[in-house]
């Protein structure tokens, strides 16, 4: 009886020890699996991220890059399969799927990791102020630049001008202080500063003509001569338009057209000549003109060109916020430059709600000189893109006192087919 009792006790102990051994083995096994998982996840992610880095470089150098001849890259015991696609909306999408296999303690472990990103062309209208050539002038204490700023040359500051958006330059910044009574060199970059950043200044008029030809509206003289086009936008979503051969004085009889049918994609383009603009915009449009040599390629503002509702709401003095009631958007493109006409309508302020693109100059005033009368304030609520700054007023009061406020909607949205750079920017990166 005593022997049997001992045997029962021992078997009981053995069972308990077996459970302990099982749990211990499980603990060891789980730890090994976690280690293997951590290692292969790290490696798989590194491989996918490497493939994404490589692809980003290739796409930045060549926006039309569609991948290598072999779409599988091998690295550190794993591989990445890369895929580049370019959807119809001109964005490029990249996807890298990495697979990493690993043997540990006689067992095979496998892990997949993905990195994908989306590139889009940088649209010029996202800048509050873009100037290709800055020149030798200074931004000085008291100047405030609203929205993102960029120049392809060196920016000169004197004293402490304020930049409310991010500042980028290709050739750096020259900060000058304690000169002409402007105080120490201390420009304020509220949105940060980065250099060197390259955003080349280009205008593809053929692309705009193509877009206007397929669903938009193209103006061109039947004989191929330069053509002047006059557009007056009405708040009821109509436009009153007339034309004349450039260099002549008599305009055709104005025609009122419903903008829905006049241009279905919102682009109105004069193939070569000048454009005369005014009115109240209801909808989203891009209007512009190419040059045909000589004194063409200009957009003349004959009066205010504004949205039904101001895109900005003014709060606490000069501070602005986006007006949620404003749904209209206008892009104005001049292959030469935008000119404010010196006429009776413009001699008492001018209001411009638009993204202005001046490819061969900047916004200016017709016949501006220091002996001109004071014309009040030029208010630009939108975005100003120009090759180089032009004179709009003088310190003696001649011309305009210029105020430029950035329409923050342009950060995420643009007028239809508004010019974009030839390079890409990364708009999303997921890993």
């Amino acid at each position, binding site marked *: *009886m*005593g*022997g*049997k009792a*001992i*045997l029962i*006790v*021992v*078997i009981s*102990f*053995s069972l308990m*020890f*077996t459970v*302990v*051994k099982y749990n*211990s*083995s499980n*603990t*060891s096994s789980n*730890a*090994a699996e*976690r*280690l293997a998982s*951590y*290692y292969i996840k*790290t*490696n798989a992610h*590194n*491989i996918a*991220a*490497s*493939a994404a*880095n*490589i692809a*980003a*470089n290739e*796409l*930045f*150098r060549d926006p039309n890059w569609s991948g*290598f001849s*072999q779409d*599988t*890259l*091998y*690295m*550190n015991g794993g591989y990445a399969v890369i895929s580049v696609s370019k959807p119809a909306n001109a964005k490029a999408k990249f996807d890298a799927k990495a697979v990493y296999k690993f043997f*540990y*303690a006689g067992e095979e472990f496998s892990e997949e990791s993905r990195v994908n990103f989306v590139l889009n062309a940088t649209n010029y209208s996202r800048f509050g102020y873009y100037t290709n050539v800055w020149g030798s002038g200074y931004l000085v204490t008291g100047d405030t630049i609203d929205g993102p700023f960029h120049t392809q040359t060196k920016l000169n500051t004197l004293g402490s001008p304020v930049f409310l958006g991010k500042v980028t330059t*290709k050739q*750096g910044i020259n900060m000058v202080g304690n000169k002409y009574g402007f105080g120490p060199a201390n420009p304020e970059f509220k949105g940060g500063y980065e*250099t*060197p*950043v*390259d955003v080349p200044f280009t205008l593809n008029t053929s692309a705009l003509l193509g877009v206007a030809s397929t669903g938009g509206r193209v103006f061109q003289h039947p004989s191929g001569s330069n053509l002047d086009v006059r557009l007056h936008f009405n708040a009821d979503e109509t436009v009153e338009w007339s034309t004349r051969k450039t260099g002549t004085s008599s305009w055709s009889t104005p025609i009122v057209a419903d903008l829905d049918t006049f241009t279905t994609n919102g682009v109105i383009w004069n193939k070569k000549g000048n454009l005369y603009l005014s009115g109240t915009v209801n909808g989203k449009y891009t209007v512009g003109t190419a040059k045909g040599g000589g004194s063409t390629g200009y957009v003349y503002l004959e009066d205010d060109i504004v949205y039904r509702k101001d895109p900005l709401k003014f709060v606490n003095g000069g501070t602005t916020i986006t007006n949620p009631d404003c749904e209209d958007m206008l892009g104005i493109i001049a292959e030469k430059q935008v000119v404010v006409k010196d006429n009776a309508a413009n001699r008492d302020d001018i209001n411009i709600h638009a993204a202005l693109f001046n490819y061969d100059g900047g916004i200016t005033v017709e016949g501006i000189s220091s002996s001109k009368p004071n014309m009040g304030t030029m208010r630009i609520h939108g975005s100003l893109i120009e090759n180089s700054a032009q004179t709009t007023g003088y310190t003696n009061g001649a011309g305009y006192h210029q105020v430029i406020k950035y329409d923050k909607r342009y950060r995420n949205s643009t007028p239809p087919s508004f010019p974009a750079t030839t390079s890409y*920017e*990364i708009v999303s990166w997921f890993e």
Partner: protein
Amino acid sequence: MNTGQMIITMAAMILLSTVILSVNKNALNTTSSMTENKYQILGISLGTALIEEAFSKSFDAYTALNPITGEAEQADNLSDLTNYYSLGPSNLEKKRRNFNDFDDYNGFVDSASNASVDSLSSEMRNNDIAAIFKVESKVYYVDPSTDNKLKKVNYRTWHKRMDVLVTSRYLGDGLDTIKLSKIYSYFFY
């Protein structure tokens, strides 16, 4: 106690001894395995940390921020970049804290427990008891357009690959050398 009971008792004791020995062996194995895992995970983390540190630096000495002017150059041509045989720290970058670009980590060797921003670029304290891990890194150019194995090339490209090797006498047989790699490519926004 008769003979039968004696035999049963002895069999029981043999069984108990066998089970105890087996459990003991298993416990030792588990402890050893857990310890190895701890060092292996620590080793992977050290390698990852070094890669992340290198990625936080500029792509090349040419594109690094100039401490005097506060500005950086933008590399437009491959000839702007460091030549393939010169990858590594310059004479002014003896210490890790002075590394300002990715390829300064080429040839970097250190013992992890003593690693710090003041470590020298080629400082391995073999005789140091605290030197548990040996961390080595190599940086070289790769050319994915001609070689999908991403091997070292002897010319300049826009892609630099970093290999990090972590070894230790405490790493187990399953993972005796930890190898991590990542490619840093130059692209500007």
